[in-house]
């Protein structure tokens, strides 16, 4: 009913009025009652999402944790949550940002930051297909890109993006992980002259685009070069595939270059742009020495599985290309009305823009774009960057797709799926003919959507997941704040079929999914003790001890089911700082031990088998303080405890430690 209403409104009203009307319609009707939706779901839905106890899901789904700053890992089709991987935000449960070893991962040029807003998980690719090696994610607030190793599900690298603000169009990868891109959502002044009036936006503000190189062997990231883009808001990105593989595409809005009330002032023009960047040519210009050195400090943090520790490195130089010096490197394709998503179909020929205020979905043609560049079919320029004529790079438009197109993913049968925020639906259309073939309502107000492998050359076109912005009545209510809501649809037939609602953490801006077989069999189960290079590791009970260095006490502690060595410690005095270096001697899968000590102004530690982690503890008062294992480890877990005695400052109690005496 809702769709029909919207369609008739759509036909009779102007575009803007239509948007407003449907917004108010949404509000007026309000959400439907949760219990009344069963008619929408086919009778076989339950069996399609049922994964029997002890059985595995077919796909891993990595969802952005949004404003939680993390990544959450789900199984599809069940929607079961397996793990929350701490990335940009501290996580007391796992000691992330609390252990001495993990603190450097959160270091930035602004100091240590305990939180960020994570948006887009992106799988590493080999030949344009997810390879299950890494997942990357961007930090939107303090611009960074993180890499998660999928053998350990641990964040192993975070690189800060200098000269940038609001790293939104990120971290999309090229066909073989040559580069991971980053970009500026909020253009800002860069370089030497930073203290300028905000009203001098047009003159002084720039939108920097960044290319992070991924070393083929080590998998290490490094900032390769940056491109000084015009002062637009860069929104999203995707890399080309096949023939278009050497190009990246970025959507821009606010081509008006407004610096206030963007809601109205950045929606003045009929068209903004998709910016096409030839990164291969940029590479060549860098090799020719066209990059200018800038000296903005940024941090590059790396985790080492051998030392079980992170290192934060302050870097100070970056190479920046100015499009004025680099002909042929960048072009602008006009794209209707504040485009959000830019998505490249599996062949690499079609580039789909999604103007969130547009009444059409423009589909650009890579081959037409190249021809237009060759014959210079331009219509003006922005800061020396040629604007290609719209018709000259356009393959066609999807007419009247719905309201508020945001993102598009693809299946393996030539269809595209576009999320419609305002009309709250997924629209399926034929990529070659641009005809709409099906639509399915979402509950409510879909943002991103995801087909497993749906931004790659080989999508697994079995499901589409709607990542919704509004939850309302879909679940049992939990006060003013509700869970976030994802919905799973079967797309194996002609018609999309809703199968399942499942809750997610934070706001899942985007997600990616991959066949479980590409990940599950290469999991690290334990860290080998003999490979542990942590400087404070005690690799056997014989090596456990307590040492004093001035007012620092270093406890070399081990855990094994179910005792600590040592478990009686005396001789610590008020004013001392105690470092608990805990090595888990277990070499068996799924036997972490936890460590907590009374009064720690800190979290627990959760130490994986073979790992060493350190908790800093500053005793606050004289007394005997217990420490214990927080992660149930055996029948005698409750006995896994110890005592540390804290004496007054200046006390003569000798420093001793013991076990079983």
């Amino acid at each position, binding site marked *: 009913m809702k769709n029909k209403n919207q369609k008739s409104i759509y036909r009779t009203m102007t575009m803007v009025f239509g948007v407003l009307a449907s917004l108010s319609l949404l509000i007026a009707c309000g959400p439907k009652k949760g219990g009344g939706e069963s008619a929408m779901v086919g009778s076989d839905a339950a069996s399609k999402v049922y994964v029997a106890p002890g059985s595995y899901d077919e796909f891993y789904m990595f969802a952005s944790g949004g404003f939680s700053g993390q990544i959450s890992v789900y199984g599809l089709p069940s929607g079961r949550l397996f793990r929350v991987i701490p990335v940009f935000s501290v996580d007391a449960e796992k000691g992330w940002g609390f252990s001495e070893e993990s603190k450097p991962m959160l270091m930035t040029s602004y100091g240590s930051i305990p939180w960020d807003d994570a948006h887009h998980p992106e799988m590493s690719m080999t030949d344009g297909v997810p390879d299950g090696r890494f997942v990357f994610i961007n930090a939107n607030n303090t611009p960074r890109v993180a890499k998660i190793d999928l053998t350990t599900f641990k964040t192993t690298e975070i690189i800060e993006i200098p000269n940038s603000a609001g790293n939104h169009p990120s971290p999309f990868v090229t066909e073989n992980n040559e580069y991971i891109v980053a970009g500026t959502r909020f253009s800002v002044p860069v370089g030497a002259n930073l203290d300028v009036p905000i009203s001098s936006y047009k003159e002084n503000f720039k939108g920097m685009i960044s290319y992070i190189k991924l070393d083929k062997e080590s998998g290490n990231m490094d900032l390769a070069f940056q491109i000084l883009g015009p002062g637009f808001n860069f929104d999203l990105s995707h890399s080309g595939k096949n023939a278009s593989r050497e190009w990246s595409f970025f959507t821009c809005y606010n081509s008006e270059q407004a610096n206030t009330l963007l809601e109205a002032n950045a929606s003045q023009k009929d068209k903004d742009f998709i910016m096409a960047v030839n990164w291969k040519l940029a590479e060549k210009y860098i090799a020719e020495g066209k990059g200018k050195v800038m000296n903005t400090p940024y941090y590059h943090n790396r985790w080492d599985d051998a030392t079980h520790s992170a290192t934060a490195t302050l870097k100070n130089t970056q190479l920046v290309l100015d499009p004025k010096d680099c002909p042929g490197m960048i072009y602008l394709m006009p794209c209707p009305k504040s485009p959000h998503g830019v998505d490249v179909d599996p062949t690499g020929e079609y580039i789909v823009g999604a103007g969130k205020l547009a009444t059409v979905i423009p589909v650009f043609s890579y081959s037409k774009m190249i021809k237009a560049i060759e014959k210079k079919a331009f219509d003006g320029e922005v800061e020396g960057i040629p604007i290609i004529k719209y018709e000259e790079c356009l393959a066609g438009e999807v007419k009247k797709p719905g309201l508020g197109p945001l993102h598009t993913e693809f299946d393996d049968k030539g269809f595209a799926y576009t999320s419609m925020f305002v009309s709250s639906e997924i629209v399926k259309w034929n990529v070659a003919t641009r005809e709409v073939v099906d639509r399915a309502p979402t509950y409510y107000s879909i943002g991103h959507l995801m087909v497993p492998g749906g931004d790659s050359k080989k999508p697994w076109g079995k499901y589409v997941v709607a990542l919704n912005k509004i939850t309302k009545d879909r679940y049992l209510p939990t006060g003013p704040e509700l869970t976030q809501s994802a919905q799973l649809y079967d797309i194996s037939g002609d018609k999309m079929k809703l199968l399942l609602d499942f809750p997610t953490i934070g706001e899942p801006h985007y997600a990616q999914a991959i066949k479980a077989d590409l990940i599950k069999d290469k999991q690290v189960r334990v860290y080998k*003790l*003999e490979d542990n290079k942590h400087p404070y590791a005690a690799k056997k009970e014989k090596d456990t001890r307590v040492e004093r260095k001035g007012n620092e006490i270093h406890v070399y502690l*081990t855990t*094994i*089911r179910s005792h600590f060595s040592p478990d009686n410690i005396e001789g610590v005095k008020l004013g001392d700082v105690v470092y608990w270096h805990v090595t888990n*001697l277990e*070499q*068996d899968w799924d036997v972490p031990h936890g460590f907590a000590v009374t009064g720690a102004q800190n979290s627990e530690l959760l130490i994986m088998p073979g790992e060493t982690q350190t908790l800093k503890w500053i005793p606050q008062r004289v007394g005997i303080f217990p420490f214990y294992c927080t992660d149930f480890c*055996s029948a005698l877990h409750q006995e896994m405890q110890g005592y540390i005695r804290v004496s007054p400052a200046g006390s003569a109690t000798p420093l001793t430690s013991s076990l*079983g005496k």
Partner: protein
Amino acid sequence: MNTNTINRVLGLAVICSSFFFFSACGGSESPATEGEGTSETEVAEPVITDKGVGPISSVELGEIDEVMVARGKNVFENKCSACHKFSEKYVGPSLAGITERRKPEWIMNMILNPEEMIDKDPVAQELLETYLTKMTFQDVTEDQTRNILEYFRHIDNGGAE
């Protein structure tokens, strides 16, 4: 081959009976397994194979090899000593006299394959009932395990720890 078949029969019986054991003491989930378990144990008489269950079916023992002893001692200290001593019971049983109590194959299978041993071997199960902490695989190779065995022989022969 023969041992394998016996082991399988025994294994079934033991798995079922161990379900019974766990559900009886731990209040485990499903009461259905209790019934099945009981009937199976009635049928199969436990057959004790003193070599245990695992990859080791025979071990050749010669003169005590001091190089192997030294290597075994090193692995033992790193991977085993947090739970086992020779003089007293600790997390697990005292290991003094182990080579007299058990066949060398049993010792190596217990080190290399503790999970299956606890599932299937009645002696390993009895030990679990006594000590209540499951012995775990400590990520050791077959060579390292053979060296640990040599170290045990050395201790039982009156050698120094």
